[in-house]
């Protein structure tokens, strides 16, 4: 976006820029720095109010991430579930995305709306309905149940991103490949697939993150047997007992993959795909 509001005075321009930058850093970046400080607090000394910086730093809380059984287990469970959800989303999402993007459909608008509904419905309501169904089916407190529940809210992102990518493939290339004698299978493998790999990759990454971060469905369906990182974070933030330092470590452990993925995704994806993907957190 290009600016249309020019200010003549150089000093005023720098003043405005400075104020806005400081404000943005204070509101959006400083909390991250404070979270890092909290994760480095030495548990033997603590960090008590008038101090703006902890008096002694240590890595004890980070070691606890692996040493405390509930944390290492939650870590493993989170990543296992995220992998399964990503795989399932690929499997379920690809054919539908292909149909929506490239085939003549009679009820396209209704189908697109259907894909959007899980994003419009409050997850906590979905969790309540699903929770009681899963109890009856014996899926409650199982990995399968949690994976299925998370897939519902993650799949729409996958379908939307892959649909957007597939729509962007020029029909000429497909026609040319078919004209030159490629069978549909060869065409898919040699022409279509290479063209949509970036979109697939981005969709998979978003599905992975979406699953890692999902809280309420996992909470209702999985509790208390299945514990993921967000559930632990909830517990440490006061849901069970407040442990600020552990909350900081779990928060950062959850944020790190997200930030890395955002960095990759910004290179691979167009802005609007990203916006579509992050429509609901």
């Amino acid at each position, binding site marked *: *976006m*290009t*600016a*249309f*509001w*020019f200010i003549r005075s150089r000093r005023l*321009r720098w003043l*405005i820029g400075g104020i*806005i930058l400081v404000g943005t850093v204070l*509101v*959006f970046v*400083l*909390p*991250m720095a*404070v*979270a890092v400080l*909290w994760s480095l607090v030495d548990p033997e000394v603590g960090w008590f*109010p*008038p101090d*703006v910086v902890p008096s002694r730093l240590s890595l004890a809380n980070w070691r606890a991430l692996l040493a405390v059984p509930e944390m290492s287990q939650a870590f493993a469970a989170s990543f296992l579930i995220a992998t399964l959800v990503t795989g399932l989303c690929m499997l*379920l999402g690809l054919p*539908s995305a*292909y149909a*929506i993007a490239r*085939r*003549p459909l009679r009820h396209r608008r209704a*189908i697109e709306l*259907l*894909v959007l*509904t899980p994003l*419009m*419905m*409050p997850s*906590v*309501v*979905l*969790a*309540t*309905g*699903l929770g*009681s*169904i899963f*109890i009856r089916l014996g899926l409650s407190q199982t990995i399968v149940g949690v994976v299925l529940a998370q*897939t519902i809210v993650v*799949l*729409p992102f996958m*379908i939307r991103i892959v649909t957007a990518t597939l729509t962007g493939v020029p029909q000429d290339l497909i026609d040319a490949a078919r004209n030159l004698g490629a069978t549909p299978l060869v065409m898919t493998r040699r022409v279509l697939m290479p063209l949509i790999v970036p979109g697939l990759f981005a969709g998979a990454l978003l599905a992975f993150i979406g699953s890692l971060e999902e*809280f309420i469905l996992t909470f*209702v369906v999985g509790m208390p047997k299945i514990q993921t990182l*967000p559930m632990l974070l*909830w517990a440490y*933030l*006061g849901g069970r007992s407040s442990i*600020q330092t552990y909350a*900081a470590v779990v*928060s950062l452990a959850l944020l790190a993959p997200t*930030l890395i993925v955002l960095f990759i995704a910004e290179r691979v994806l167009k802005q609007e795909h990203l916006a579509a993907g*992050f*429509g609901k*957190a």
Partner: protein
Amino acid sequence: MTATVLSPRLSHRLRLRRRADRWINLLLLMPGCGFLLLAMMLPICQLALASFGLFGIGAVGQFTIQNYAEISQNLLFTSAFRFSLQIAAVTTLISVAVATLFTAVLQIDFPGRRLVGALYKVPLVVPSLIAAFLVLTMIGPGGMAARVLQPFGVRWPSFLHDPSGFGIILVLLWHNIPITILIVSAVAAAVPRDVIEAARTLGANPWRVFRRIMVPLCAPGIAAAALLVFIDAFGTYAIPSLIGPAFPRAISVMMTSEFLLHANWGTASALGVVMIVTTALILVLYHLLVDRGAARPDS
């Protein structure tokens, strides 16, 4: 001769082809969209039935409106509904106002503009639980603001469990304002330069250009962002369950505690139905205001 003989055969083949196409579509849509359809319909039906005392866990199995009578009369539930609506409305209004102003500021050519444009996107990737933690480290009890102000003798108000719900709103704002800015500034970027330049040449100052041209042209984007923020704030669970007051509680918190603590699926389902209906009404309102409103000037 060929034409008259071939055309029925051709049309027959075309019909077969079309039928096959329809089957292929169905087959392709089945795993993804079929799954979503099932995954949306079943819980909604379950909630609707259980709210009337049918097919619920521990329900009598007889049609009853007892659950609805309960939630419409008990002050705990009515205040929860009002509290959630209030939080959603305030969050939406402030988000939209701040995001629109921020978009105006981003139109100023100041040094560091691109950096600011990147930094405000940080909360987009932060899940709401972590957002609650981050905001609390700044404004909560023992947070940065309290620490910095303590030597000056200023007592920082505690935003933890305050009955006004202001702490919840602050976390929701931190989380939702960047999303709103992203949407509004994306729409703003699509406003044709010619229109802006014409207004400037005709003597409108930048603020006037923003108010009279940018804001009206961005209105559909602003409305869509407002819709997203409202739905998110109305249904949020993690934030009010952690930092909300004991009374009134958010409707989502009331609902989960009904079935998690009291195993009362009937009342929880009725609350769920109320939440779905409210969300649906908001969507219909949006459709009436925006989609219809946008369609009229064109036709």
